[in-house]
């Protein structure tokens, strides 16, 4: 079994068989698990036996989802969490301590920037922002206190694409793990392990959930990092060797933060995973058609989509993502007022903040996910006031185009 969808649907040898032969892992919507005797429960708590004890730490339905992701990514292991933001929080906290730093792309998802600047900075985290398309900036920013390099596979909503393998090569020379947010590509479009990424984090709320069904996140340890050379994990590496990151998460940080994925979410997202490739193919195809259409319209000042030959990232994106470019595009109109008028005129396209839903969604990023920043910060983050984000769904492309057309004709 080699294909992505076959593995997603069947799970291969990675998943356990149900006790009753159910063809789909049932929803274990329970909190706790019983043991035969006191010693057995002691061993479970000590990690000396294989078994679930408490759903905040692990659960059969969540484990089934994690194992399917592991199979699809050829990773060492996967931890499913409550949201994409929880995944980012956990990985930063496990790798960096107060006084240390991470090097981050300056083109970030708004809430990630807020997490770094407003939530973690007061606890002593330093973040150095660089232009990831200039690998020399990454190299120059590394110092003895750098604990991770953080970037997004396709920056949302700036749609910048960096040379991931080039950055990973620089990071490897200093034994620094590259952490990549692969939300908008998923392992279907981008096998981060093949490009030297140590840990991939995702918001599984997006493409994977199957149509905006549930909020969730994933931490994927690709198994290619020597955790013994990462200061925060040296002790764990002496005990757990290559499993240091997973063990530290499972036996301390993930357990203590309580940011577990619910069994219900895991059940829904396992369903979503089965149709992931079909939905991504459709949304990518729609997005490219719509990007070209918008380019042809006089009302539109500019269109940004890595699938367009005019994008400065087109060739790199083509090489990294196998000729598909994701389901997000942005375009600019004259000003913010025009953006609002256009948004309000749409009939089928929904006004909502999400991406990679089955439905096409429109959003004005500057006044929503970047609303807490001043004009200069928004400029620096690549979010101008006259930009709209179209998160393309899987509807019939003609209907999306019709709606965009009638909206543009109101301007």
């Amino acid at each position: 079994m080699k294909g992505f969808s076959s593995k997603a649907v069947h799970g291969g040898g990675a998943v356990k068989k149900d006790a009753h032969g159910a063809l789909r892992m049932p929803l274990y919507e329970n909190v706790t698990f019983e043991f035969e005797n006191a010693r057995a429960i002691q061993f479970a708590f000590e990690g000396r036996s294989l078994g679930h004890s408490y759903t905040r730490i692990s659960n059969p339905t969540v484990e089934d989802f994690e194992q399917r992701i592991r199979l699809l990514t050829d990773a060492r292991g996967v931890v499913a969490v409550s949201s994409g933001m929880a995944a980012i929080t956990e990985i930063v906290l496990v790798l960096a301590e107060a006084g240390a730093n991470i090097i981050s792309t300056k083109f970030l998802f708004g809430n990630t920037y807020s997490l770094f600047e407003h939530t973690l900075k007061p606890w002593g985290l330093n973040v150095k922002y660089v232009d990831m398309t200039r690998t020399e900036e990454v190299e120059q920013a590394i110092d003895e206190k750098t604990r991770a390099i953080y970037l997004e596979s396709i920056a949302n909503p700036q749609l910048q694409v960096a040379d991931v393998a080039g950055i990973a090569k620089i990071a490897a020379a200093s034994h620094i793990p590259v952490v990549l947010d692969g939300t908008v590509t998923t392992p279907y479009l981008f096998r981060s392990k093949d490009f030297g990424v140590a840990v991939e984090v995702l918001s599984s709320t997006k493409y994977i959930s199957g149509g905006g069904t549930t909020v969730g996140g994933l931490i994927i340890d690709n198994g290619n990092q020597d955790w013994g050379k990462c200061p925060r994990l040296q002790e764990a590496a002496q005990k757990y060797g290559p499993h240091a990151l997973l063990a530290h998460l499972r036996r301390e940080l993930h357990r203590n933060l309580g940011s577990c994925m619910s069994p219900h979410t895991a059940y829904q997202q396992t369903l979503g995973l089965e149709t992931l490739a079909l939905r991504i193919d459709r949304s990518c195809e729609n997005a490219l058609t719509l990007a070209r259409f918008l380019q042809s319209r006089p009302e539109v000042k500019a269109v940004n989509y890595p699938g367009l030959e005019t994008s400065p990232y087109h060739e790199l994106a083509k090489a990294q993502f196998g000729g598909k470019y994701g389901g997000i595009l942005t375009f600019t109109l004259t000003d913010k007022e025009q953006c609002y008028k256009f948004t309000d005129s749409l009939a089928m396209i929904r006004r909502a903040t999400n991406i990679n839903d089955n439905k096409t969604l429109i959003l004005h990023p500057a006044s929503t996910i970047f609303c807490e920043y001043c004009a200069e910060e928004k400029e620096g983050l690549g979010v101008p006031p006259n930009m709209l984000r179209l998160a393309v769904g899987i509807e019939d492309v003609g209907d999306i185009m019709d709606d965009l057309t009638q909206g543009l004709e109101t301007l």
Partner: protein
Amino acid sequence: MTITVNGEAQIWESEEITVADLLTRNKVEKPEMVSVQINSKFVEKQDYKTKKVVAGDEVDFLYFMGGGKAR
């Protein structure tokens, strides 16, 4: 010889055993998902058949549930 496995004394007639022998005798569940420690030091999976366990050693089999696999 006597060794300690997961906190319990275990007597072996042979004076020379390997981690692989221990995994078999103790019927370790899903050996691909276990981390083996001897005297609190991690043992690489590729060394299971050659790594000797001697009298007095303390051996622990440790799991971290869900989503992981040893290589």
